[in-house]
């Protein structure tokens, strides 16, 4: 009898402990795969942006799917896409088939994203691209809607519009130089790293600048993407009498070029694309000599929307660096949340129809997807910005009342004092 009582006690204790340990009907998480080359800054941006958004959403209770609140579970998918395309596709397939993610965000190298896009489409998973700019990714949606409708691109704006902004920035600086220094015809030195992606910009510059923008191209220079010395190019540019250096850099040469340009006090304004100058470490790496370099950018501490500055500050506080455009995964998660909550399900087809109706103010502007599921560019939508290093800070200088667009915190573009002195004395 005593043994029976003891057995009953142990049994009751076991039942009670099971009851206490089991979560009371915890909702299954919504799994989101974050694709990116995680050992590189681009992948870091993907992961940091997504982590920040997931934390915020989960702290607020999760995503409301029908009547239940479901938390977000992020799946880190290191695609290693810079080094191996098969690696990237294996990682994407692992996320889709094994981890059974509900949605995918991220991707960077277009060649890899094209294949990962197919993997996502095969599995009918919504994939929000946050990294690859090539228009071909979205063209597929219009060509074969039923298959590719699950693809959306949030960031960056597609390369066609990036090119447009590039030339707008150039035109704006040319206008300022004409007005400030009284120069009649602006002379431009086109400097692009020796890489395939830069070729179209060089070719268009040679045609467009003289024909449509009334400028003279004094020469084209193509330094190596990893050049450690650009003094020969800079001396030649100075001798050619260029007023503006139209830069196209994505690699470390951008750092060398900007630093040496400042050291030599070349009397020309650098404007265009310089990915190195988008990074917060640029000022320190150039020892302050990169001041006045202007580049296209996605984020700066400026009020593009009411969400931009809080996002920017929190990102800098958490990760000790400014966000780059791949951190747009932050907005991707919020856009997904909004779409899922509107349709009350994670069913891909229904989420696609909700995403198509997206009209959402995110940290980079107002997001509306066009027919090809690409983010709409233009005034009152996402414009991207132009940033310039001024007194050790990355300042937003464009849009500055462009098409009535002005973001609070934007400052006027500054010409380097040695440029002003040189061209005023020259007259």
């Amino acid at each position, binding site marked *: 009898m005593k043994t029976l009582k003891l057995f009953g006690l142990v049994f009751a204790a076991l039942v009670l402990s099971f009851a206490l340990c089991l979560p009371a009907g915890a909702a299954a998480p919504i799994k989101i795969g974050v694709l990116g080359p*995680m*050992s590189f800054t681009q992948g870091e941006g993907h992961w940091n942006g997504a982590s920040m958004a997931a934390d915020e959403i989960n702290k607020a209770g999760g995503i409301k799917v029908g009547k239940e609140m479901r938390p977000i579970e992020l799946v*880190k998918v*290191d695609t*290693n896409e810079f*080094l*191996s*395309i*098969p*690696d990237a*596709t*294996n*990682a994407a*397939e*692992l996320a*889709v*088939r*094994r981890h059974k993610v509900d949605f995918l965000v991220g991707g960077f190298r*277009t*060649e890899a994203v*094209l*294949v990962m896009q*197919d993997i996502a489409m095969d599995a009918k998973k919504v994939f929000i691209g946050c990294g690859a700019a*090539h228009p*071909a990714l979205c063209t*597929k949606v219009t060509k074969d809607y039923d298959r590719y409708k699950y693809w959306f691109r949030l960031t960056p704006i597609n390369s066609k519009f990036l090119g447009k902004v590039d030339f707008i920035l150039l035109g704006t600086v040319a206008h300022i130089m004409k007005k400030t220094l009284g120069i009649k015809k602006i002379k431009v030195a086109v400097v692009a790293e020796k890489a*395939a*992606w830069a*070729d179209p910009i060089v070719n268009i510059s040679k045609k467009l600048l003289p024909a449509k923008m009334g400028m003279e191209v004094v020469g084209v220079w193509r330094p190596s993407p990893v050049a450690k010395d650009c003094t020969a190019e800079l001396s030649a540019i100075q001798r050619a009498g260029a007023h503006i250096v139209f830069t196209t850099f994505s690699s470390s040469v951008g750092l060398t070029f900007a630093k040496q340009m400042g050291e030599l006090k070349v009397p020309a304004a650098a404007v265009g694309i310089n990915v190195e100058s988008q990074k917060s470490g640029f000022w320190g790496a150039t020892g302050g000599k990169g001041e006045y370099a202007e580049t296209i950018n996605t984020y700066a501490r400026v009020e593009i929307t009411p969400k931009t500055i809080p996002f920017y500050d929190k990102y800098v506080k958490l990760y000790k660096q400014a966000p780059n455009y791949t951190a747009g995964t932050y907005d991707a998660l919020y856009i997904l949340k909004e779409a899922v909550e509107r349709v009350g399900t994670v069913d891909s087809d229904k989420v696609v129809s909700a995403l198509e109706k997206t009209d959402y103010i995110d940290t980079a502007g107002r997001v509306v997807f066009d027919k090809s599921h690409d983010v709409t560019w233009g005034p009152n939508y996402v414009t991207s910005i132009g940033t310039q290093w001024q007194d050790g800070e990355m300042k937003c200088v464009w849009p500055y009342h462009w098409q009535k667009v002005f973001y609070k915190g934007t400052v006027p573009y500054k010409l380097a004092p040695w440029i002003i002195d040189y061209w005023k004395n020259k007259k």
Partner: protein
Amino acid sequence: MGLVSAYFRRGWTILRSEVLVLPSRLAVLLFIIALMAVPLFTQDYYILRILILTCIFAIFAASWDLLSGFTGQMNFGHALFFGVAAYVTALLNLDLGFPPYLSIPLGAVGGVLAGLVVGIPCLRLRGSYLALTTLAFPIILTGLVFAMPDITGGELGLSGLSRLTGSRVMDYYLCSSLVVILGFAMWKITDSKTGIILHAIREDEVAVRSSGINTIRYKLLAFCMSGFFAGIAGGLYAHFMRLAGPSTLEVSLSFQVIIWSVFGGMVSIYGPIAGVFILNPLMEVLRVALGNFPSLPEIRMFIFAGLVLVTLLFMPEGLIPWVRDKLENECPRCKLRNVFIRQRCRVCDTSLS
């Protein structure tokens, strides 16, 4: 019925006297059976993707062994054949609408032509000079790919190729069958009279030439055959990935194929195949095992490099020849191989001890 029975009896005799008597052959048989049986146990897309890519790279690695292992024409730019075939296959499929069963063999013909283009200027070169010259070709072609984006798709490559077959399982069976068939074909070539001449060219080209053999013709033949098999792999890759891009010409791919082959064991055909079947899935196993380990690609590469180094330190001829030599002994008289437990040769009865 009698005929079927006769064939069955003959097959069984060959199996019993030629295959089951040697552990290496038995291992190959078991490997083929296991390879064909995989879809019966799992049709997981992820596993099948890894195995399909492994089969494709195995054909590619064996084709390198045919040229560089057997003929001694050290090719450091083998990705050229792979890439050319991938692009030719993609262009035929996308522009002319050729289905995979036509575009892949024609892509392989592209690989053959690439073999000729590389082979002819390299005929007078040997050793490191040959290796460095061959390394230049895929780099030159990458430049051309970027220079002609209207044809090649430039940085983006050519995408949207039709699928290899209708399903992942069928893709798997096609690729696994091809690795067996083409691997066997390459092995038979190396075992033939032509193979012996190729082998002799590697050992002493002057001696071969002095025997009245046109070594130029055989060396070009080796380049073309290697280009053909690498081309089949390139075409399969393009259709499976639905993309032919500049990554198919990357220097890293050329070096990868050398690592696989040297690890598995050069001058054997099955060595490089085994090398790919060990190392390629291993990288995925490490991905799953290490999960969200920071710097995952670097850690995987570190383990990969460490494994290859250790293997080569203790097994300079590669893993598979080392294992084979442990399990089998060569008869000093008739040169046939015997299982290590035998005291006397299974054919000539010579003592093996």
